[in-house]
């Protein structure tokens, strides 16, 4: 396993955030509606982690450090983890565990159906994230994991439908998503690699021992 300490650090950081939120909620620091705050935070946290996970490949092209890829899977799995917590928090705090309501909500509310689709997409990606699946699926693995892009769009739609009046934060996430999607266009990918090569050349020529 490469970079075990970096991985552990990432694990501890991402795992501690929901614990901190829980602590704030028990300390009554999240206001009179802590459940709603937790639901919102977990949902946005899942989106941010998904965006981070998608930023790893372009970052590798740009910097040449292969370590980024090591984080990609963990970030993706965390996105699912946050999304599952988001669902549980929704069922507990907003529905009050009234599941008779949930079936009706799933049918009646498009944003909940859309959220369920996004969760399904993340689950498929997580289930096929093991080395065994990668070997088993071979070339098809890469194709399958492109499901992450429509999943991201579905997640953004899910959030847009919840927004009541202010689209500021949503626009921020959507623009980051757009940049990350553009970075996957083959021509852009080549461009990123070139930028990296240029930096390397510049760095090498600057080192005095390389000046001949």
């Amino acid at each position: 396993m490469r970079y075990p300490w970096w991985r552990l650090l990432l694990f501890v950081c991402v795992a501690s955030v929901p614990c901190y939120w829980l602590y704030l909620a028990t300390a009554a620091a999240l206001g009179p509606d802590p459940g709603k705050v937790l639901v919102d935070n977990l949902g946005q946290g899942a989106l941010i982690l998904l965006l981070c996970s998608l930023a790893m490949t372009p970052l590798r092209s740009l910097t040449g450090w292969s370590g980024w890829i090591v984080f990609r899977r963990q970030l993706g799995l965390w996105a699912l983890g946050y999304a599952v917590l988001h669902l549980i928090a929704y069922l507990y705090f907003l529905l009050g565990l009234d599941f008779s309501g949930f079936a009706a909500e799933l049918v009646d509310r498009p944003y909940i159906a859309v959220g369920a689709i996004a969760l399904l997409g993340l689950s498929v990606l997580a289930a096929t994230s093991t080395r065994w699946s990668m070997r088993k699926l071979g070339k098809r693995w890469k194709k399958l994991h492109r499901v992450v892009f429509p999943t991201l769009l579905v997640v953004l739609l899910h959030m847009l439908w919840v927004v009541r009046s202010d689209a500021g934060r949503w626009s921020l996430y959507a623009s980051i998503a757009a940049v990350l999607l553009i970075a996957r266009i083959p021509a852009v990918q080549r461009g990123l690699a070139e930028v990296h090569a240029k930096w390397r050349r510049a760095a090498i020529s600057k080192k005095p021992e390389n000046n001949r």
Partner: protein
Amino acid sequence: MLIKTPRRSDCLESEVTPETLYLNRRRFMQGAAFSAAATGLPAIAQADSARYANVEPSDAPAWFDKKLSQAKWEAITVKDEAITPFPDATHYNNFYEFGPDKGDPARHAQQLVTEPWVVTVDGEVAKPGKYSIEDLVSEAALEERIYRLRCVEAWSMVIPWLGVPLAEVIRRLEPTGSAKYVRFETLVRPDQMPGVRTGFSLIDWPYVEGLRMDEAMHPLSLMAVGMYGRVLPEQNGAPLRLVVPWKYGFKSIKSIVRISFVSEQPATTWQTMAPQEYGFYANVNPDVSHPRWSQARERRLPGSLFSPNVRKTEMFNGYADEVSGLYAGMDLKKDY
């Protein structure tokens, strides 16, 4: 329709404030008056905040203090329901002029200058003109009314408002026969309102709300100037706001600067923005869902991690006996 507004004497069974607390308040008031007189300072901030815990003291205009001393306390109460603590009622607000998050109004609304305040009255009315709040509410006695507040976002609170019946304000202005609706407008002052300055809000300022004339004249409709025994905090719609307890909270427009009497149903803010989601009437109705979420239940705030405090939403927010007559013959699924 005849509706009996409970009088002061009807409220003896009320459990909101124990008598000892009430007596304490009197002593507190006398003490405050005495110390103010003794030091020779003008009497300031005689907010009756001792009634409720954790109420931030305020600096009220003189007319308010004068009216407060003759206020009818607990003129209308709720049975067997706890009043939302003051810090929650003042730190969890929708007031998009000050920002989109629930904490934004408490953070930014202190910038709002509420004195002097001018309310323009126009339209189908015999006495149009510019009014101060003191002028508008001068005739009527201040009443404390404890109402449930149900937000369209499926959370709710219980708030002790201070105000005068909207009907008495309207009667004094003498609307003409062609006044079928009342239209209200919120202040727009970008230099004091960060939410108005931002380009991301989808709202077309000013915020506009309206009531049908019979709704406005209903005894439950309140023109509020205070809450929790003091003047309205800025984030709760100072210095003048509407409270219509059987409708979703967004109908109870804040920081009013214009009251217009009109013959046509006014185009109101949320209804114009998303007509399939928010209707003109916006009566609390558990059977008519918001297209994006159910209205059958609500979260009574404050909730906690261990008790989300989810409860069933009542038709007309529990005021059906008083107001359902207003909508006789109407299809409330269509006119939501």
